[in-house]
């Protein structure tokens, strides 16, 4: 089957189509920025964009996304230039262990794509699917507001 990941059309060959997208990305395509946290769509560490919408890849059979556009954390920084969200994450020193942050950034990016000036309540609603065990929520909020400012500059 075929998949479009980060703008590239890929032939996955003869694959077990029940495999969740997460493990295709990590094991087969070596795109390991997308993380395994819970396997039951509870923690959001596996968040990718499916046709631009934030999606939990750990419970999504790869057969369900054949021919569709998948974007992972590796696909955000086009030409090596960080996006406004990634740059805000660096500047505001959001990460502690960093394990959840790819998923957080994918959710935040999707939020800002559809709502360039989110309120705190918008952020709460959009980011509640992503757990940060280290508790960096205050900085995630600040970084999203900062990135929102950036996109309007």
């Amino acid at each position, binding site marked *: 089957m075929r998949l479009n990941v980060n703008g590239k059309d890929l032939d996955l060959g003869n694959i077990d189509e029940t495999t969740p997208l997460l493990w295709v990305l990590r094991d087969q395509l070596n795109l390991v920025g997308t993380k395994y946290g819970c*396997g039951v769509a509870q923690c959001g560490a596996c968040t990718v964009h499916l046709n631009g919408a934030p999606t939990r890849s750990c419970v999504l059979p790869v057969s369900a996304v054949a021919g569709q556009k998948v974007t992972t954390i590796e696909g955000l920084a086009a030409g090596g230039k960080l996006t406004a969200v990634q740059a805000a994450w660096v500047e505001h020193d959001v990460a502690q262990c960093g*394990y959840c942050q790819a998923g957080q950034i994918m959710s935040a990016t999707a939020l800002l794509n559809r709502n360039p000036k989110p309120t705190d309540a918008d952020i709460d609603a959009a980011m509640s699917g992503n757990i940060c065990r*280290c508790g960096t929520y205050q900085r995630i909020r600040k970084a999203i507001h900062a990135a929102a400012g950036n996109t309007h500059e």
Partner: protein
Amino acid sequence: MSAVEQSVLADSPSRELMQAAEQRAGALPSLDRRSFLKISGMAGGGLLLAFHVGSEALANGAPKGFVPNAFVRIAPDGTIVIYSKGPEIGQGIKTAFPMIVAEELDADWARVKVEQAAVNPTVFGRQSAGGSRSIPMAWDQLRRAGATARAMLVAAAAKEWGVPESEITTSSSVASHAASNRSLGYGDLAGKAADLPVPDAKALKLKDRKDFKLLGKRITGVENVEVVTGKPLFGIDQVVPGMQIAVFEKCPAVGGKVQSANLDEIKKLPGVTNAFIVEGNGKPTEVMPGVAILASSTWAAFSAKRQLKITWDESSASKDSWSKSVEDAKKLASSQGPESLKAVGDFDKALANASVAEGFYTYPFVSHAPLEPQNCTASFKDGAVEIWAPSQTADAALRLVAGTLGIPVEKVTIHQTRVGGGFGRRLMNDYVCEAAWISRQAGVPVKLQWTREDDMHHDFYRVGGFHSFKGGVDSDGKLVAWQDHFITFTQDGEKPALAGQMSGDEFPSLLVPNVRITQSKLPLATPTGWWRAPGSCALAFAIQSFLHECSVSAKRDHLQFLIDLMGEPRWLAPKNEFALNTERAVAVIKLAAQKGGWGRKMPKGSGLGLAFHFSHAGHFAEVAEVSVDANRKLTVHRVTVAGDVGPIVNMSGAENQVEGSVIDGFSTMGLEISIENGRIQQNNFDSYPLLRIAKAPKVETHFIQSDYSPTGVGEPALPPVAPAICNAIFAATGHRVRTLPLSKEGFSV
């Protein structure tokens, strides 16, 4: 060693590990006797500041001409590489350690590259992350490493220009001689410095704090760009040639052995390459019995694991029951325990003339639940094993794995990866031992990958416990009587469960004239371990909440009550600056109260709570602002934190640790691990609901940067969180929370 010093040690996770690491460090030649190592074959020449190492260390996989066991390497182009020796678990040490070296070196931070050091405690000393000890234990070592390099660069410049060293200044990787208006970059001096003798490190003058240029600033993490672009940093991201994915199923009740398993069926499943019974060595900290499955992909391995049918021999397995333990503890509440932990003064007499408070406190087992489930990559070949491990204690893992496999420690190589959350879970290296064992038994390299459910079912849990308190406040408003019957657990029938011990000198017993502390122990089989701020993370909830009950019973303001309790300025363990200092305690209590708006009138249903706790050499006080609605739905609006851990190394990292500690402390008030028939009842984040962003309070952090040596800040901000919030709930509602999780008291978050 005084009792307080012992208790300071006792509150540290991995006390034994620390002591072992300290012994190893102590066995090292002292810094001044280490010789400077010149590596003539180093690419392009340059200055490599290493400490003389034996052939054993050099043989540790080091390519010719490059020795990885150095702190500083300066290339002719001026690039400075600083090696960070400890594991990065989210505490920011990979940024903080090199900052300390760079400060004394006067390095241009923008041109510093940080690399992870090899795991080699013979060279580096302690390479663990636990007990908030990384900064205090490495502070002097790292400063002198930087200062030694700087001194040699200065000497090289002085020789080059024929001027006294005392006339040379350094700044931002440049040495200058003002009188002759000459300057040279460190890169230009590196080759010359490499030819000079190593100065006596003890004689080197280290900087005064007022001259710090880098330390104390907000410096962003050195791996931030890699984190936000999804680079393969973590244990789970490791790939080695020929590697199979391994999963491992152990008995859900610890101690159970495999009687039989449907291995033939499993071996036929798609992608499965092998399946076998692992006998293990029966130690939960190493390898317990179970069934290993190897497969060509993680999904094939996970799918096969779900098809496993194992018959367990549970004759020696855990039958633990939390609900029974709660009943047993309640029966003991009104009596004294059989063991005395402390008896001073005359408790009964003091109580007779006092206003009395009484309370029975309960806290549950909790799990570490780091977001990266346990995993480890291991390749066993020809009697040696190479390991890539997200461990907090890679130094200890070297010897542990050697022991488990029965091979010499020289045959174990461990690479430290970035760690997706520690919280104390990865002080244990069970998953490392398992990976090494399975690789040996299978004869192929493996990445052992636990599922989330494995991670929740096979933790070393923060142990639950119970306290039956009585306290008395005299007519002057002073706490004069303190009684605690501490009910904990024991796995061996003698010692308290790991991290379930309490010192008789636990706060506030050294500040109260009449004290009676006794202990009972309930039987337990479930493994327990060090959970962020071990001991204190649970004790502070009970003790600092009950102290508030005491001040309320005497109709005293809690701020003044705590200040009075501290009394005269003094160390509670004389001459030990890692002990509680009452002056530092009062200072953080006053600052938290001032910044948190203590004493202001709150609307109905809202309240402020104040709590202090000392742990891991850190003094912390916190004010929580909460509101509770008619349905007992709790909102924590803000937590104001005041802390004193001495000078701050990296302000951004330190504030991040405090913010995280507050979220962790609050999150855990809503969580419990319950055990029935030896089995953990929680499976995943649906039944262990970590706090999410919408419920996260604002955190405001204030540091008192006293002149004492810097100490760690990964843990001590956590213990005061729960009592500050519970004291605020009392202020808002009049309801005293004596049992966690909060749902047991009818509160929701």
